[in-house]
């Protein structure tokens, strides 16, 4: 890293740091390290410290000219202008700050992770909705975060024996280890404000939340369960679309789920589709758009073709906000855009409309 000679950060916001000399710093691209540096920078800034100038190795070349008033400390990028105060200083450096702060992708501000979590991973400053995983989603929606999971062990049979950068079978194994899920969806029954219902949540981290035979089967079983038990259904989508690695079998899941939804429709049971960032491809072109209500979180990317594909087709840049929730609302394809903190109460009121007051 190379910081300019005028690199005094006393009153500068940290946000300016990565762009100091227009060079890409690998260190700052790593979110964990960036968090650490952000915290360190804030701490040093509070103590009114200054950069000594260019970064130098720990053992500086003998006789090299030093800027006035600076002392080269081994492995330190900063030097103090004031002597360290009693009781502070070195002990403080060992405090772990990783994971305590998170930079908001919406407004760029540094947010205390605790306050972010208290706000259901929505930025308290700008309302940006961070992506959340399927289990967190279910915990937020079900009363006391309690639910009974269905078909947790359904797993892909790798029907095409697919290999790309690595074998699909190996990718599945790695994904299972990383997410503790057998495939890209969690299906569960439980209560929402005392009303029993079925909620399926797609897991974006599992091969892009893509839909293969397992996701298709689990959603179809969920629908059939709802018909048998007369339960309302909520599906929270977050997916890149159908799963390429299972070829035409993935494609047929669109038809399978949609046909099952026809039966749910015929049984007059409510189905609410919640679209979150991102919902594209075959998922949008099947169950995500077939809700009695289609609602979305603010700012979610929702579309059939991905923006990259469209840009390649029309060979021009897409307008700002294209394929975002608000764009779909404007064009009449969503019933409402519902922020995450009020989603649960919205679902409750909608289900009251569909099924009457809970017993």
């Amino acid at each position, binding site marked *: 890293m190379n910081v300019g000679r005028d690199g005094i950060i006393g009153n500068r916001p940290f946000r300016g740091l990565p762009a100091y000399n227009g060079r890409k710093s690998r260190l700052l691209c790593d979110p964990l390290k960036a968090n650490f540096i952000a915290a360190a920078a804030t701490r040093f800034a509070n103590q009114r410290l200054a950069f000594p100038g260019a970064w130098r190795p720990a053992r500086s070349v003998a006789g090299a000219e030093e800027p006035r008033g600076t002392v080269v400390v081994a492995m330190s990028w900063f030097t103090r202008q004031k002597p360290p105060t009693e009781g502070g200083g070195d002990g403080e450096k060992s405090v772990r700050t990783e994971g305590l702060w998170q930079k908001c992708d919406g407004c760029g501000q540094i947010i205390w992770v605790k306050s972010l979590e208290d706000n259901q991973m929505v930025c308290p400053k700008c309302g940006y909705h961070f992506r959340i995983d399927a289990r967190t989603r279910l915990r937020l929606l079900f009363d006391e975060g309690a639910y009974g999971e269905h078909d947790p062990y359904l797993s892909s049979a790798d029907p095409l024996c697919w290999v790309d950068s690595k074998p699909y079978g190996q990718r599945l194994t790695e994904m299972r280890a990383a997410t503790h899920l057998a495939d890209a969806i969690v299906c569960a029954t439980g209560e929402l404000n005392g009303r029993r219902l079925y909620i399926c949540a797609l897991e974006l981290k599992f091969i892009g939340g893509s839909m293969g035979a397992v996701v298709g089967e689990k959603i179809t079983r969920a629908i059939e369960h709802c018909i048998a038990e007369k339960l309302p259904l909520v599906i929270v989508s977050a997916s890149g679309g*159908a799963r390429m690695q299972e070829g035409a079998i993935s494609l047929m899941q669109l038809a399978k789920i949609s046909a099952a939804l026809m039966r749910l429709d015929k049984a007059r049971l409510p189905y609410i589709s919640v679209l979150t960032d991102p919902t594209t491809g075959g998922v949008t072109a099947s169950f995500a758009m077939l809700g009695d209500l289609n609602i979305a979180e603010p700012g979610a990317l929702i579309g059939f073709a991905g923006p990259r594909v469209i840009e390649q087709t029309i060979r021009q840049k897409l307008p700002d906000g294209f394929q975002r929730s608000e764009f779909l609302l404007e064009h009449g394809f969503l019933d409402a855009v519902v922020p995450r903190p009020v989603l649960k109460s919205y679902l409750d009121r909608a289900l009251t409309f569909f099924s009457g007051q809970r017993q």
Partner: protein
Amino acid sequence: MADNEMGAVTAPEPEEPASNPSYERVLLARHPKRPHALDYIERIFTGFEELHGDRNFGDDKAIVGGFALLDGQPVMVIGQQKGRDTKSKLYRNFGMPKPEGYRKALRLMQLASKFRRPIVTLIDTMGAYPGIDAEERGQAEAIALNLREMARLESPFITVVIGEGGSGGALALGVANRVFMLENAWYCVISPESCAAIIWRDAGKAPLAAAALHLTAQDLLGMKLIDDIIPEPPEGAQTDPDAAAKAVKETLLSALADLSRLSPEQLIEDRYQKFRNMGNFFDEAGA
């Protein structure tokens, strides 16, 4: 599809196999002289009258449909139509339908269902059109609605993939009681070009993707996703369109004879069970 999250790591340069029968079929399916939907319709049916428009926005030229007679029996026939020269290709939007096309197709299918007339669809598209206007008018919603409503149709419903079966844009005409593929047609969740662009960041690797995707009629029959393969003349349908059309017609007639024995409720149940059983997975703990 699935182009947002997957394939973030570019795969290593793969070896090009010496011969690639899958990709050869993809090329045949796109052969410039290959018969298109209207070529089959004029050879198989009589008295075809085209019906236009989705009663909502416009008339999509990439989907044609209308009533006709199949050996004297009234049927609704709907197909995805490509052009042959530059002008007609543009007119047909390269066979890539927009939402109004899918809505027109659904309107015609529901019309046929109302009067219990059989439905025949001919699939031949690279995929639904990926453009700003299509997205604005709800491409995904139009396809999704077709998928659900096709499951409800009370008529015998037969689909033939005559060329390309590109993803949701193809399936949006294909939730039928019987699904057939011509010998050199392909049908898959993604086109080989898009697949290669995602995995290897190079659409030129399409031949490899074609092999990996298992998209030929033989592959789909093996996975029990289609009912049968309709044979083509030895060098492909373009060498003898009449013979290809004759084979399609025979298949349609025999399938229709089968299906006409079923009541509307049985037809709906038959269609449901057909798609309900598609998909391979393991269902035991710890698999």
